[in-house]
């Protein structure tokens, strides 16, 4: 079961424990105890720009504004500083450095200067590599576990977050979170109703119906 399903299964369990607030799929944080990481100098000014452009490649302007217009770049910088353990921060910084180096190697220019097409190409490769790495990690973990899980006593629940940090996965996750919960994303790309006032369980889809945020 992937994380998305895990979060959804929590969201279904409304009476389980306490009320879930927004049924966003973006509930989770990360799991570590290090917090000597609130350094304001985690990123250089150029890296902050790089994050902004990367986010805008992940969620670009279409018929609605993209990540840059929604301020997602600074949001990601802040989130990585505040909400991630040192190890993941290091992965993230290294990922930015690698991305910039690859841009220079492949296109002889900074990621900030290359064309949208070139950015998409680079990010596409990054995406494919991340998918492959995650898949390999999952297979490795599956091989480690006994073929059939025997009855475990006690039935301990896992920690909320486990697994390796991947630069692209963090960047994409924070871009989606930041964008779809921003005022621009929630009200223009999605449809936001502050106080619905009623629940209709079965309404006809309107043409051009957007997802309610």
């Amino acid at each position, binding site marked *: 079961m992937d994380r998305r399903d895990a979060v959804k299964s929590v969201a*279904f369990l409304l009476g389980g424990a306490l009320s879930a607030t927004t049924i966003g799929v973006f509930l989770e944080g990360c799991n570590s105890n290090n917090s000597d990481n609130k350094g304001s100098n985690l990123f250089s000014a150029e890296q902050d720009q790089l994050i902004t452009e990367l986010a805008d490649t992940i969620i670009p302007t279409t018929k609605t504004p993209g990540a840059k217009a929604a301020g997602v770049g600074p949001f990601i910088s802040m989130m990585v500083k*505040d909400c991630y353990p040192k190890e993941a921060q290091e992965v993230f910084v290294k990922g930015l450095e690698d991305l910039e180096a690859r841009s220079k190697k492949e296109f002889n220019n900074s990621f900030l200067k290359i064309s949208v097409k070139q950015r998409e190409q680079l990010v596409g490769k990054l995406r494919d590599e991340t998918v492959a790495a995650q898949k390999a990690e999952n297979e490795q973990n599956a091989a480690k576990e006994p073929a059939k899980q025997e009855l475990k006593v006690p039935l301990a629940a896992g920690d909320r977050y486990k697994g390796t940090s991947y630069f692209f996965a963090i960047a994409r996750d924070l871009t989606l979170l930041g964008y779809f919960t921003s005022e621009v994303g929630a009200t223009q790309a999605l449809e936001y109703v502050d106080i619905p006032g009623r629940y209709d369980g079965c309404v006809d889809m309107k043409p051009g119906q957007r997802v309610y945020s």
Partner: protein
Amino acid sequence: MNLNNKATAQNTYDAIVVGSGISGGWAAKELTEKGLKVLLLERGRNIEHIKDYTTAMKKPWEFEHRNRLTEAQKETHPVQKRDYPYQEANESYWVNDLECPYTEVKRFDWYRGFHVGGKSLMWGRQSYRFSDLNFEDNKKDGHGNDWPIRYKDLEKWYDHVERFAGISGQVENWPALPDGQFLPPMEMNCVEKSVKKRIEDHWKKERIMTIGRTANLTVPHGGRGSCQYRNLCSRGCPFGAYFSTQSSTLPAAVATGNLTLRPFSLVDHIIYDKETKKAKGVMVIDSESKENMEFFAKVIFVNGSTLGSTFLLLNSTSEAHPNGLGNASGELGHNLMDHHFRCGASGEAEGFEDKYTYGRRANGIYIPRYQNMGNDKRDYLRGFGYQGGASRTGWHKDVAELAFGGEFKDQMTQPGLWTMGLGGFGESLPYHENRVYIDKSKKDKWGMPVLAIDCEFKGNEQKMRVAMMNDAAEMLEAAGMKNIKTYDNGSSPGMAIHEQGTARMGNDPKTSVLNKWNQMHEVSNVFVTDGSCMPSIACQNPSLTFMALTARAADYAVTELKKGNI
């Protein structure tokens, strides 16, 4: 001397209620309405209805971390962070774990909120009655002790608390889940309606599915507004649309003129008088100034949460009660239970692509227990119910893993898959060895020793979980769902925040702490009416039963007091 007498008189009430959560609020309401002068003690700060729900009207983008936790929050809340309830949007409602440590002999996730209203502010609001099936199970299979009451003893008190609290729900005539005094039910969405019909047809109504019975008002009720379908309940409701101490029982108690509410009042122990063989009051630590003070009363209601109350009783030792107040049975601290959950199945619904929903319904569907009833026999004892629901998200089937870009973005903004999930809530048996005790090797912020918790689920629960997955998949399949996946995310005791037991009721003082009126066998003027009193936990969400037991016990206590019996 004279001064002391005056101070004592000033600190004397008819009744003291320890704890202001769901059951404490009810005790305060019932006792004040019956004319008693009541002191309601709360260890944490005050939270005033509406005024202090500081995040209630915030929009998603007004939360700096968009509801995620910072590393700093995770450091001060190593237990609260283990599951989703502790979030940026209501982080001030949860305890700082570093200030109030406890000992986990085995993993136990202890979710706590120290403030007026307790967990009534953040609760899940699902409200179900117990039936005789539940009251008789202990006796039938020999696990735990027999309940000293049956459904007929509690029925009118369920009526009483439902009428006041406002529970919305659908009458079903299902014997294992008695109907109540319901406000109009919330609506199922079109996928849920279809699933309900197909399950009930397939199993010829030996299984049913109903809309969740919830303490959210579907119509204005008792001066409170109706639900606005924002699904932001756990921040506190500015419309007063769900039951909490603040929205409901506290204003009723205040209106009598008989209530004194004292926040920042941590009860250290109950003062026992060996001459009268009764409790004469409580010793309180002011949790701000750490000053000690005493309060006195004829009757004491202990409503400090399941483990909070048991800790208080264990900590109230005296020559006559060396092992904790009213603990001659030795059962105080034993038989800790919680529901096990995070286990079930989900699937995708097809054929509803032209339908959508409006509004955020803070409620789901409920499938009451059907196992080990009638012809349904299982290889485990007791049973489980399901909570769940269908929803339509922006997720689409053909989206590649870690997709990005403009096309992906636009697709995410269009309603996509309908999914339906069922998650089981299973009963755990009352095991004597699942217990808590006081650990004097540590101290909390207020200088109190801490609780040690030694509790685990066992084989019966594990067997049940297999069925919780398989039955869910089977029903989703019968309902026509596609791409069905089962899951078991593991469940540690405490996670369901339905911890119960440790000061159980029973007929026999040798094997139980409380009698059938929630009155201590050994100390007649002390009543314990929160989750600690439960001899078994069934599989239903328990808070409604705490409310009913509290109202019933308060009625009895006042009657006995008037008769001069206590």
